[in-house]
């Protein structure tokens, strides 16, 4: 398997080239711009047969994607932050119409104040839109997950976004093992969609759906979300079996004997693993759960994985504005309600607007957690890392 030094954006663009979608409609935004640029050069150099639509906004980009998907195309786009926020309305339309679009998303904070660096506020703002959400830890993960996402989306007919941490992954070089074009094509197979405007019989897509049917149609969407976890798992297993690597819905790192679990998403997981090794060297029985999939929320997997935990330290790279903490914390606590109060939880919001988080900082909150675990009491369920107050 050829190994190339690629940034996250290059890795995602390379996956797009190999997927060779029928239609890509996109609009540039830092830090996802490169994905669109690189793909445009693939089009200009004849390396793909894609119809590329350089739209005048993200709202139109995603609208064109839904139109293309309804017409029977395999469709992809890329965006970030304000771009995803501008798409917000149409994200729901895509999910409701069961359009299996794949977005290569790069996580960036939301304005105001304007900031171009990483946090998870953008994708967390659309966690209720009916899209599957996959958070990659590094470029390899991003590359592999984008390829898997096509299969997943086109099996359950749900749109899917794969995101990387802005700049931290999107702009950092890493060795990435690239599959052969044919391997990718064989893995994704021919495009599948639930319906097509060119499918023969004339169909009406997006009708007005009132009190007597809307609820059932939304229920079908919820059911598709529920069952998609099985598909996510199956597609990953097949990928692993074929190519020797993969990403479980939740990845457990040194959790076997751990009674203290750290939870995180994205690039921070790499940093957290080093912090955990450090603490383990001091005899602390701590492990990591990397959430690879946030939507649907893997609550059953988490219940199992946290069944032996006494203390959970959650690292959230966004806030919910609920005054209860970040989204990972809020949702994990809800999932674990039956096990509580046996498990104590502490949430740390960190890294907003791209502020760095380092090994020491994570080690410090693990130590704090150890203390609280011994005391059997959480002093501050919500705190911040690396913040001047």
């Amino acid at each position, binding site marked *: 398997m050829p190994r190339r030094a690629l940034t996250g954006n290059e890795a995602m663009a390379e996956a797009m080239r190999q997927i060779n979608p029928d239609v890509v409609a996109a609009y540039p935004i830092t830090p996802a711009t490169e994905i669109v640029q690189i793909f445009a050069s693939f089009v200009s150099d004849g390396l793909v047969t894609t119809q590329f*639509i350089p739209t*005048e*906004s993200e709202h*139109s980009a995603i*609208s*064109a994607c839904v139109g293309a998907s309804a017409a029977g195309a395999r469709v992809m786009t890329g965006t970030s932050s304000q771009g995803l926020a501008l798409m917000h309305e149409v994200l729901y*339309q895509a999910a409701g119409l069961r359009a299996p679009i794949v977005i290569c998303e790069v996580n960036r904070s939301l304005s105001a104040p304007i900031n171009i660096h990483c946090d998870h506020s953008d994708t967390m703002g659309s966690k209720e839109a009916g899209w599957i959400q996959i958070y990659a830890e590094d470029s390899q993960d991003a590359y592999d997950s984008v390829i898997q996402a096509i299969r997943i989306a086109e099996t359950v007919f749900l749109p899917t976004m794969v995101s990387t941490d802005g700049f931290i992954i999107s702009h950092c070089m890493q060795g990435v093992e690239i599959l052969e074009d044919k391997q990718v094509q064989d893995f994704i197979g021919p495009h599948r969609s639930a319906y097509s405007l*060119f499918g023969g019989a004339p169909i009406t897509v997006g*009708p*007005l759906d009132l009190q007597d049917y809307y609820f059932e149609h939304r229920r079908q969407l919820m059911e598709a979300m529920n069952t998609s976890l099985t598909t996510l798992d199956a597609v990953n297993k097949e990928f692993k079996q074929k190519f020797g690597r993969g990403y479980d819905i939740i990845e457990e790192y040194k959790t076997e004997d751990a009674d203290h679990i750290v939870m995180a998403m994205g690039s921070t997981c790499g940093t957290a693993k080093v912090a955990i090794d450090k603490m383990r060297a001091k005899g602390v029985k701590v492990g990591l759960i990397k959430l690879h999939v946030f939507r649907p929320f893997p609550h059953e997997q988490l219940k199992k994985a946290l069944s032996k935990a006494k203390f959970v330290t959650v690292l959230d790279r966004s806030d919910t504005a609920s005054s209860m903490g970040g989204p990972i914390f809020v949702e994990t606590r809800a999932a674990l309600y039956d096990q509580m109060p046996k498990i104590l939880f502490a949430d740390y919001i960190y890294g907003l607007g791209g502020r760095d988080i380092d090994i020491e900082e994570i080690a410090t909150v693990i130590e704090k957690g150890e203390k609280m675990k011994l005391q059997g009491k959480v002093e501050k369920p919500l705190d911040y890392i690396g913040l001047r107050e």
Partner: protein
Amino acid sequence: MPNLKELSKNAGLFTGGHRACAGCGGTVVINQALCTAGKNTVVCFATGCMEVVTTIYPYTAWGLPYAHLGFENSAAIVSGVEATYKALKQKGQVKEDWNFIAFGGDGGTYDIGLQALSGAIERGHKFLYICYDNQAYMNTGIQRSSATPTGANTTTSPAGTKIQGKVQRRKNLTEIIAAHDTPYVAQANPAYWMDFTKKVEKALKTDGPSFINVLAPCPLGWGFSPNKTIEIGKLAAECKFWPMYEVENGKYTLTYKPKKEMKVEEWMKLQKRFSHLFKEGNKELLTNIQKDVDTKWETLLKKCE
């Protein structure tokens, strides 16, 4: 141009039984356009009266492929559909030739969807955009749009004791679209079906984007009796409020010359939305409205020379 008999063969593409008000001009616009376009046409629609009344699930008035997403994105959806057509044709997965028509009301076109339309035209997709201009947001209860004429009473430009309906002038959307160097642009009117049919035919033959702005008299929003739709349309052309013309690769042609001199207020008098303007003290407003119509007409005639 197809004759009436030929056109009537396509009558089932947009069926009756939908829930538009009696005498709705918008449905006449759609029907005439589709009779000309024929069955190998994909329709993309913006949210608004016509979308709402034709697709209440599980019913549909559409006998051809139709897609609706939102209020402001019908030109963006059609971009994706047209691009897919090219992609699938190249792969041999679609064999026949297809037309693409995006529809939007004045709200969905002059206002909230203007950016998407401008972008789609600039990108050169091969599609026809038809704006059915009923001059307000009818679906949400007759609010003003930038297509609402000066003086009209709407629920967000109500005629009150101090302000006499909409204060501002109409946006000249047809000229804005012509300024995109759009290969084919026209203004039409369902009261002149032959003229409209010819325009739809020309538009669909254009190798690139085309745009037709069609007046769509609305009995409910304008305040006239449902049996007067076509008459109101005709008089809008006669009084020069709604000139019928086309712009082919930059060349302007007037396609209908009014037969008699008629003041715009003769047309306005027939509609309740203007009734307050005929009260004591509003004479100057009427004079200004007439002046505006005259100026625009003169400007257009010069372009058509």
